[in-house]
């Protein structure tokens, strides 16, 4: 399935050597070195500053366990919601032609470039106790784990919708037409043709959305606040721990780094096997 390939090479194919050029990566390795070093050295410094002993020690403290449990719990809910709410939107922009489709696409993508702090303020003004919707409905969402999930969903959903839309778009139109000729309705065409063919892309998108939600900070601290065990996710605990207890912050940072890297490797390597 092409959709589960690398985003760096959307169309994985055997490259024909250009006549007259020896295909050597050597020079490009050297030219890429500054970028690679720039990205690797800080992470290396983080790992070197920490130690397995400190990590195992702090893993047993309630502060780290609470943040870890809350982060894993909320990001899993966020991922499920992103799939449930994002799949119809992805199918819509991938397979339907309607006026304003580009605008809808841009809207679905907007949170990727929007500063998370803007997302947090916007959520507060919409769903806060005296917010646009929160006020009339009498909502009390702010400062609850539900607010954490909403903040994560806002910033992470595009990662799912984007990947899912690419997956749906790569389904051959002939297959859907054939199914339609055989009398399959819109739902059955989606359920039995598009979904089975696009699911690796959906899975990839779900994992990417989960990973982005795991790192969410700016919208969370504004909309959900910061209370250990309730709304203090790992990134928040790292930020505040940096000023109080550096080793605790480092432990959480190492765990976060490991989880994020694992998610990316899963997407890039694991899913390509299918």
């Amino acid at each position, binding site marked *: 399935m092409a959709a589960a390939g690398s985003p760096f090479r959307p169309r994985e194919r055997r490259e024909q050597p250009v006549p007259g050029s020896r295909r050597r990566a050597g020079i490009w390795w050297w030219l890429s070195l500054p970028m690679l070093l720039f990205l690797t050295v800080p992470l290396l410094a983080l790992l070197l500053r920490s130690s397995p002993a400190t990590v195992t020690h702090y893993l047993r403290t309630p502060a780290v366990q609470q943040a870890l449990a809350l982060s894993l719990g909320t990001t899993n809910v966020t991922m499920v919601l992103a799939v449930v709410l994002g799949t119809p939107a992805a199918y819509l922009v991938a397979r339907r032609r309607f006026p304003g489709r580009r605008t809808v696409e841009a809207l679905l993508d907007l949170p990727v470039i929007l500063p998370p702090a803007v997302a947090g303020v916007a959520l*507060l*003004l919409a769903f*806060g*106790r*005296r917010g646009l919707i929160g006020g009339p409905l009498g909502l009390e969402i*702010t*400062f609850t784990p539900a607010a954490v999930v909403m903040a994560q969903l806002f910033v992470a959903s595009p990662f799912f919708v984007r990947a899912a839309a690419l997956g749906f778009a790569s389904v051959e139109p002939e297959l859907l037409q054939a199914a339609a000729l055989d009398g399959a309705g819109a739902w059955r065409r989606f359920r039995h043709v598009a979904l089975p063919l696009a699911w690796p892309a959906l899975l990839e998108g779900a994992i990417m959305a989960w990973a982005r939600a795991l790192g969410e900070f700016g919208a969370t*601290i*504004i909309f*959900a*606040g*910061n*209370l250990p065990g*309730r*709304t203090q996710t790992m990134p928040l605990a790292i*930020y*505040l721990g940096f*000023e*109080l207890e550096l080793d605790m912050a480092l432990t959480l940072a190492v765990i976060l780094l490991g989880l994020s890297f694992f998610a990316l490797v899963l997407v890039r390597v694991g899913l390509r096997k299918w």
Partner: protein
Amino acid sequence: MHFPLRHLLVASFMLLAACSLGEGAQRQTLTVYAAASLSGAFAEIAEQYEWEHPGVSVRLNLGGSQQLAQQLVQGAPADLFASANTEQMRVAQEAGRVAPGTEVLFATNRLVVITPPGGTEVDTLVDLVRPGVRVILADEAVPAGRYARAFLMRAGVAGGLGDDYEKNVLGNVVSYEQNVRAVLTKVALGEADAGVVYESDALAGDVGRIAIPAELNVVASYAIAPVADGAEANAASFIAFVLSPRGQAILASYGFGAVTGMES
């Protein structure tokens, strides 16, 4: 054709000389590093000071005292440092950026309980322990957060609000914010029923206020000192202005208290 080149060189040197001369004759800049809570008061003080000292322009660098102290430690150029607590002044002193003993206390700040505009169920300090009341404090990493905890501890033990007062109020806390201004904003937006901030913050926002009795309150002391390698004369005259009756009146109008025993 070497003549035009030489003319060009001479001309550029003259231009350069003129520029540096012009700079000397131009206004001098006084760079003041000031705690974020001083932003309103120091903007007005700077304006008044500039008006009285034509030829000097004041540049304010506002931020958390801790951030500013770190910038000074890293060698950032500055002429004055005004810190929200003596702790961060000591950080700058230990790094050699401020000479020990040169700092002057110039203002104080106290805590106050704030409530959303239009009021909520919180009217007195006792109401903070009522079940379901949403309270926001600054995080422990923030000085205001530490002061708030100290107030709650005193209120329970010495304030006659009950032995469990601190515990019950902390049980109502829905968020520990990363700075004191975030507490103000969220209470002003009505997201919480009460918060604890500085008097000067409360004046800056559209919020209701519940005074904390003096015997339970915590006093934050602000210190100002010239930076060791800065412009000495202007720094001294700026400090004098801050301590003068006019400077003190501006600080008072922004909710700051006077330092007891200070001549004015």
